[in-house]
């Protein structure tokens, strides 16, 4: 059973056991516009909640995507290297950004569920 959480910075984190997949929300990709480049970290990198983990670049600007919780990056979405627009077309599916091993699952309780997140962008 997986559970998806959301941050105020418009990231989603889908948790299954001790690992999670992270991406940006549909609202976020819409705000950013067409992406042309995604700067991905190396697998194995340790991140703290709030660290910039990925940089997404639209035609016009570069924006940070922050780690929603502490952990270690285990995998990045290699498909984005040749097709960054996947983040626009499937932000919560094929356009995921990275997978991570969580170091403190307790931090999840500080995040929003989908209903709470939707209320913030309504």
């Amino acid at each position, binding site marked *: 059973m997986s559970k998806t959480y959301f941050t105020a910075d418009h990231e989603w984190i889908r948790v299954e056991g001790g690992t999670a997949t992270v991406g940006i929300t549909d609202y976020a990709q819409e705000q950013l516009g067409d992406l042309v480049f995604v700067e991905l970290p190396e697998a194995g990198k340790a991140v703290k909640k709030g660290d910039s983990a990925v940089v997404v*670049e639209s*035609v016009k600007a570069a924006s940070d995507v922050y780690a929603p919780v502490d952990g270690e990056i285990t995998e990045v979405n290699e498909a984005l290297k040749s097709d960054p627009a996947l983040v626009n077309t499937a932000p919560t599916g094929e356009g995921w950004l990275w997978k991570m091993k969580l170091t403190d699952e307790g931090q999840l309780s500080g995040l929003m569920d989908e209903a709470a997140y939707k209320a913030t962008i309504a």
Partner: protein
Amino acid sequence: MSEKHLPLEAMHEEAGARFGAFAGWRMPLTYPAGVMKEHIHTREKAGLFDISHMQLFAVDGPGAAAFLARACPLDAAALGEGKSKYTVLLTDAAGIIDDLIVTRLGPDRFMVVANAGNAAKDEAHFRKIAEDFDVRFTPLKRVLLALQGPDAESVLLGAGLDLSDLTFMTAVEPRENWFASRSGYTGEDGFEIALPPDEARTFAEKILADERAMWIGLAARDSLRLEAGLCLHGQDLDEITDPASAAILWAIPKPLREQGRFIGADALRRILAEGPRETRIGLKPEGRQPVRAGAVLMTEDGRTVGRVTSGGFGPSVNHPIAMGYVAEDASAVGTPLFAEVRGNRIPMNVHPLPFSPHRYRRG
């Protein structure tokens, strides 16, 4: 200072525009199609831009040509009626206050189109100079629309405006208080049309009734002008750059460079005698990562030689593109340079401008 609103703002809202602040104005940045599609659409069909943030000034009176020749490095007296010229306003030190388009409308009548962010500064500067000339200098309240792209002429014809006699950088007054020129800032053939705000909605609707035309936001305007190698004042031009280093000397006729009496002429002659310290160039980053304005440029051995002033992605050329200033000895096309972006060294090469060929309708 409160944000300024376009007269056609409601139309942009209805079209689903995403807005952002630019030069003190609330401007449509993108529409639901998105910057990529908007950009490509402009190159393939016709893009409609609301650029009413730009300021038109009417210059009238027996001293009009002499006044403009003092304010700008421009032979205004020799400018034919209906002809437009790209020019600049300079400080005493030949720094670029703004870049402008000046059009002659009659023996003693000219139109000046200035950038939004500089309009107030330009007006003060012009008014000060105007004190010494027999001239009236009047800011106009107009909606300014640009229709750009290969279908622009025919879309306008369908909207009841026949501008097919115009060639690049010529202009007419097709109706009372209207001003139309064959010009633009995308590298495409196209037109800029100024008209009274109360007539603008009907006219824009007529244009948009043609399915080849659609609204294009400021984001695509920026990627289009960068692909076309055109400067954005405030980024690629400013008061610490001069026309020689900005590589816009083509806009200043040689006799004027040598003998002109415009403001900044002596300083420009000094710069030309000594040779400019740096020069504006195009840059093509290797790979897919854009290099943005502000990035420092280095040679292979780590010597800092310049900076990026505009950078992003070119949807038509389908690779990152940039423009910047480098030392003369690093300005040759093909020179390998590096930009530092978030700790990474991005290799890039000096590239000819424009990135995407101009398709102006010349005479």
